[in-house]
């Protein structure tokens, strides 16, 4: 009985709104945009933070990365083209001793993986690809996410005997050996040949992400892994980079050290300890610490802040939409004063009039909300297709947006509905 009455009130409301299709449509637009922007913005925000978090997770939340940095003072001097630097090598960065000390003194360390990263062209036959030649230990596979596609990774034997072997990434294999089987061949790096013993794919492209924005030249997909001992003997400790008309020499023992901790709790205690330890042996600021766990926390905090900002923007647009609805409903009440008078004369109580106009407002806002949800769920899909940004529409964002649109209808409908109900029936009947 009651549901029947509500249903007929809703039908009546829809009928009244259809009387002014354009006006109702324009009124709904405010809510449509509001709801749509809530859902779309949250979806884009969610997608962005998901990507960032995935990227950071791939660095390994138990890991602490230490990278060698060219100290800013030295870099400036070199850039100034000081003649005194010609023929002199610049020494900076992490040392083999650092790696050994980290392993020995920091509690909770599971393993320490040192890396030398040298830019060289890798050649096979006539093709030549600029690469990062990474000298590292076999345990490298334990600290990063690596998928061995063919063959094997480096072994302790390779390390011990300074074998001229290498493991290449799938991307490089494709570029260097478009027709041949890489496993049958050797590649030439600088002056030496290295036998290809394995092909891997790095599932976490995390390193690239954290370095983005720093203009590192080549895509990280072109990686060649060789034993650390081989790297030391074949390339020597002093790395010479030829540049237009001059060259620069620098002595860097290790470019990166990945410290894997036992668990995330150990990461937190180790972080300051490592900083203290390194500070003691480095008199210049020639290294940086990257703590993925820390980054993850920051990313989460950023996401929260981001969501609050987006939420406020969307809330404001919903508020504006609500005010638009209220405005139209007030005009509506004035326009239909006579109808209100007639209904009151025919036995409508104030409550009935309030309900009638409230239902109309709610129909407007919920209708706008439904359309907004549809458009809002479609927008992220289009955005994803157009920009390759990842977007995630979460259920709660849809529910919140829709709930708010309903609430807006009730809140902003109450005043006009109340104004309609409080009209004096005699005055209302006389209204032209």
């Amino acid at each position: 009985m009651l549901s029947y009455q509500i249903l007929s009130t809703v039908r009546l409301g829809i009928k009244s709104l259809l009387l002014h299709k354009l006006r109702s449509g324009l009124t709904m637009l405010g809510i449509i945009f509001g709801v749509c922007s809530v859902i779309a913005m949250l979806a884009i925000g969610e997608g962005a933070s998901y990507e960032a978090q995935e990227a950071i997770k791939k660095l390994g939340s138990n890991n602490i990365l230490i990278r060698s940095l060219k100290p800013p003072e030295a870099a400036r001097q070199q850039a100034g083209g000081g003649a005194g630097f010609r023929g002199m090598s610049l020494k900076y960065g992490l040392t083999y001793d650092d790696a050994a000390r980290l392993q020995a003194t920091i509690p909770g360390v599971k393993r320490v993986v040192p890396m030398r990263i040298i830019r060289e062209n890798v050649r096979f036959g006539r093709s030549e690809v600029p690469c990062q030649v990474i000298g590292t230990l076999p345990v490298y596979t334990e600290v990063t996410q690596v998928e061995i596609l063919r063959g094997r990774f480096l072994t302790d034997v390779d390390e011990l005997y300074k074998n001229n072997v290498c493991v290449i990434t799938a991307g490089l294999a494709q570029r260097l050996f478009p027709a041949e089987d890489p496993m049958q061949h050797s590649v030439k790096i600088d002056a030496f040949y290295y036998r290809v013993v394995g092909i891997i794919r790095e599932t976490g492209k995390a390193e690239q992400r954290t370095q983005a924005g720093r203009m590192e030249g080549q895509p990280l997909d072109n990686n060649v892994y060789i034993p650390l001992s081989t790297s030391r003997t074949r390339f020597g400790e002093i790395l010479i980079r030829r540049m237009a008309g001059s060259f620069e020499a620098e002595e860097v023992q290790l470019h990166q050290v990945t410290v894997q901790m036992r668990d995330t709790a150990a990461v937190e205690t180790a972080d300051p300890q490592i900083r203290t330890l390194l500070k003691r042996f480095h008199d210049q600021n020639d290294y940086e610490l990257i703590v993925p766990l820390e980054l993850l926390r920051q990313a989460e905090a950023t996401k929260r802040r981001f969501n609050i900002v987006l939420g406020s923007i969307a809330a404001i647009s919903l508020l504006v939409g609500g005010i638009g609805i209220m405005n139209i409903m007030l005009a509506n009440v004035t326009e239909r004063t006579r109808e209100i008078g007639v209904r009151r004369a025919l036995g409508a109580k104030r409550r009935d009039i309030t309900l009638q106009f409230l239902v109309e407002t709610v129909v407007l806002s919920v209708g706008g909300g439904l359309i907004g949800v549809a458009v809002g769920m479609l927008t992220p899909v289009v955005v994803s297709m157009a920009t390759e940004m990842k977007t995630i529409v979460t259920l709660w964002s849809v529910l919140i947006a829709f709930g708010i649109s309903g609430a807006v209808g009730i809140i902003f409908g109450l005043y006009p509905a109340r104004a309609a109900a409080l009209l004096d029936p005699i005055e209302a009947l006389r209204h032209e």
Partner: protein
Amino acid sequence: MSPPVAVAPATPALDRPAATGQPIIVLQAIHKIYALGEEAQVHALRGVDLTITAGSYLAIMGPSGSGKSTLLNLLGCLDRPTAGRYYLGGEDVSQMSDDALSEVRGRKIGFIFQSYNLIPQLSVLENIQVPLLYQGLDLRAYEVRCIELARLVGLGDRLHHRPNQLSGGQQQRVAIARSLVNDPLMILADEPTGNLDSRTGAEVLDLIDRLNRDGKTIILVTHDDRVAARAHRIIHMRDGLIDREVINRAAPAAASPAHA
């Protein structure tokens, strides 16, 4: 009561046993004062006494400012008197709450307005149903009755038309059907022919006459002597009081109602 004229099928609206002669409206010393500002007041009604019996056909006349409209509003329970008592069907409605008055209007009074006052977004049938809507009734159960009322006023074939698709006379007939749907104690008609030409007006008045012959109590407010001439009892208002009262023995048909 005269033998009922054979009209249409016996509709539920018309078969209520009308206890002709019973007073259904009793006004006792009704005063209505409107406060215009701090000091200024308008004494619109200055102690009106009036009794109307069931089955009456009453016309209220008077110049503007005579209190005629105020009296109509009070009779229609749209307003409350400042002082005095108003009994409608034995119930004192003079100091009822707004909700209670709405209830009384919905159950006991049928309104016919000068400008028809149909609701534009509703069809003929839906307009007739409006008073039922506010009684909390299931409209589906009353659909047959509403269709019969539409037939009674000659609009059985226009049930789904909108008011703006009907002529003035037709709209007023829809309004008459609407005033009957709740089987009211009385029908209040405020200048029902004011917006109609004389021929259409006559048709509408004929319909109202017929309702009276079938036992409905009619209260008609008008300026027009010829309209008032159809009533059995005519009261003239002046300066907030009933100035004089005429029993119209020349009125066609119907037994002259008892006069208190």
